[in-house]
């Protein structure tokens, strides 16, 4: 078991190296620091001196991979690649193009992100699974059909509409909750109710339809027929047999998504003015701040890999049939 986890973690490190190289190529080789400087300063007619000054200030005035004029190791260390990409592997994000410490920003913004993401995720999961179970309980009836229709309609509506409609109805017309904003501590509850609700609703259609098909697949299996033949009630069959067996694929999907909750949600954070990592990323994209985007890419990939490893481990814990090779 330990050996398996170690092997997965080493594989994860290799993936991170790949991510690092890929983002470096994407950000620096395709798009030279000169272009970035021109974009940051603005306009086509930027003098050479201004570009040089911008580059020196931010440490972009070095060759990409190989410094020909330097001594031994400095040939490789005195390059943009070494100075910009290698610290990322130690989770040292450095400074943004604006000059702020990215690591500090990440730490302070993680709280609001989690305050929104965790309730949305777990309440949403609960709502979707319950709805799917309800449909499976009434499978083949008009209620099931109506439920599937509702799911298809719900998942055909863009998430942006839910947010805009929710803000309009609850904040503008009914005035139950504020439009947007965030404060520290428990008082943030009234700011978070609407985003959480909207987040649950926008996931409900797609997820409960998916879970319903998972449950239906289990419901067609032999052991379910055996359970019914024994005379067990439908309720027991549903909760004790179908739900427990179908929980396996749900669990892997869920566990691998949990670490990514740290990243926050891009859209709803920016709509509801919550100062989390999602809105931080969006601001960086809009301001074309490459350092922040690169740091967030790296953080996201690392969390994704943690999620993969967690999913593998949880799989073996709940299903004794799964063994590590």
């Amino acid at each position, binding site marked *: 078991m330990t050996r398996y986890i170690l092997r997965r973690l080493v594989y994860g490190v290799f993936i991170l190296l790949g991510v690092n190289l890929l983002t470096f190529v994407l950000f620096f080789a395709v798009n030279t620091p000169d*272009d*970035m400087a021109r974009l940051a300063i603005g306009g086509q007619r930027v003098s050479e001196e201004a570009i040089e000054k911008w580059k020196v200030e931010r440490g972009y005035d070095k060759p990409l991979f190989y410094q020909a004029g330097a001594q031994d190791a400095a040939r490789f260390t005195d390059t943009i690649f070494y100075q910009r990409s290698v610290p990322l592997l130690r989770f040292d994000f450095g400074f943004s193009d604006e000059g702020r410490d990215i690591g500090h920003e990440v730490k302070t913004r993680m709280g609001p992100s989690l305050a929104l993401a965790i309730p949305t995720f777990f309440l949403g999961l609960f709502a979707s699974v319950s709805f799917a179970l309800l449909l499976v309980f009434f499978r083949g009836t008009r209620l099931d059909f109506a439920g599937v229709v509702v799911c298809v309609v719900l998942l055909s509506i863009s998430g942006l509409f839910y947010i805009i409609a929710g803000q309009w109805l609850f904040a503008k017309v009914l005035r139950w909750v504020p439009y947007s904003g965030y404060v520290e501590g428990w008082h943030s509850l009234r700011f978070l109710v609407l985003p959480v609700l909207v987040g649950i609703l926008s996931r409900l259609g797609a997820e409960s339809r998916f879970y319903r098909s998972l449950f239906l697949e289990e419901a067609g299996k032999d052991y379910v027929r055996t359970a019914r033949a024994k005379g067990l009630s439908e309720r027991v069959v549903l909760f004790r047999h179908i739900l427990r067996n179908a929980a396996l694929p749900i669990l892997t999907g869920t566990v691998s998504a949990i670490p990514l909750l740290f990243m926050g949600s891009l859209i709803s954070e920016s709509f509801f003015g919550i100062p989390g990592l999602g809105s931080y990323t969006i601001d960086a994209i809009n301001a074309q701040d490459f350092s922040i985007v690169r740091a967030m890419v790296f953080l996201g990939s690392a969390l*994704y890999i943690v999620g993969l490893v967690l999913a593998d481990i949880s799989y073996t814990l709940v299903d004794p049939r799964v063994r590590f090779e």
Partner: protein
Amino acid sequence: MPEFTFLWTDVFVLILVLLLAVYVWHARRSPALRAAWGSVGRTPSAMCAAIFMVLFLLVGVLDSVHYRPQLPPLPGQESAAPQYSPALRSALDDLLALTQLSQRENTYSAPLALRQFTKETEIVDGRAVRDFPRLKHAGRHLAHEDDRPADIRRRVLAGFAWGGALAFGLGVLLTFAHRLRQPTLAQAWRCWWRRDGTGLPWRAMWITSAVLAIVLAIVARLSVDYHVLGTDRTGNDVLWQCIKSIRTALVIGTLTTVAMLPPALGFGIAAGYFKGRVDDVIQYLYTTLTSIPGVLLIAASVMMMQVYIDTHPELFTTVASRADLRLFMLCLILGFTGWAGLCRLLRAETLKLRELEYVQAARAFGVGHWRIMRRHLLPNVMHIVLITLVLEFSGLVLYEAVLSYLGIGVDPSMPSFGAMIDAARLEMSRDPMVWWNLFGAFIFLLLIVLSANIFADAVQMAFDPRTRRIQPQAASAGAPEAAS
């Protein structure tokens, strides 16, 4: 003679239509494909959705025939080479020119309104008056403004009559078409009205077309003299914006999946077929790609593309061609970042297929790797490609709205639902509220995505053995009724 211009996405749309025709011809000859598509054809909801899809496709294709109209020669230079307008027009623009849709106002106006939404200062009889000015292109024929409700009512009734007549004509046509195989007209009518479960669901399709025809006739009748869905901030007709956005949505939904096919097919089949080292490398490749948060990777790539476009302005002759290249590149980027999911499915399927007897036999006969992959594996994974193509479509159309909101979507000069929703965000906070822009985008986006989803479900049911296994018990009880 105008100068026809083929933009990148135009070429793609036209090739796609051509490929669709080739596929239909191919599917008709293959018994397996005919049976699968037959089962799609027997699903009433899917065929009703298909009617909408065909309509949207038609709009998209018409909007993809671009040309630059020839400008009238300047006085004194009649013999010089013909000059062409710098603005591109499409065949759809010419069709819409018959109505009031392409006419612009100054700024916001409510649906079917005669006057602008905001007050302006006008000079009346030499004095400055602040009032809501009359619209330039709405209800010009009315003698008095109070006639508007009566006029609208008359137009709605006329549109209803026209649409009803069209639907009736369709019904008569259907009956006569069935008359070829039935002895009497009454039996022919009964044949398509009372469906026996084997042929196409004609009744549901007819009801859908009838509703569609009536709505379209009413809208067409009204849009000759009014702005049916009002106008947006810059005075463009919202209905016109919606219709023009259809093409953008269609291109994003299809071109992206087509762009993912080469890497997904190549890597997926190679990984499943060769196993071992090749498989390891390819798995590493797509795990690396999927581990990067999708939106960020897309944002990074789009930022790179933006820099390239900004530094090479000489490549584009018109604004439309620059916007179009951006759309084209956006689809390629989405495809490049999104092929991992399809690749994983194809790899798993190929792993299964390569152990089957016919592949083993081919290998025993000494058939080359390339030939085995092309002749034996590729045709047998095509159903996965097809299912992915239809399933991804609706998700991508919705994704475009999100990307445009984030500012990494299509060019701002290109009409798109994302841009409309983005604009609506500020309009909702006005008082009184400007709701029609969002409403228009909502209706059209819902129609496109809903019909695509319903159609995709039927396709998946017909082609995916796994869904077919779990579905029958649910499908037998509540037979989906005609949803129009």
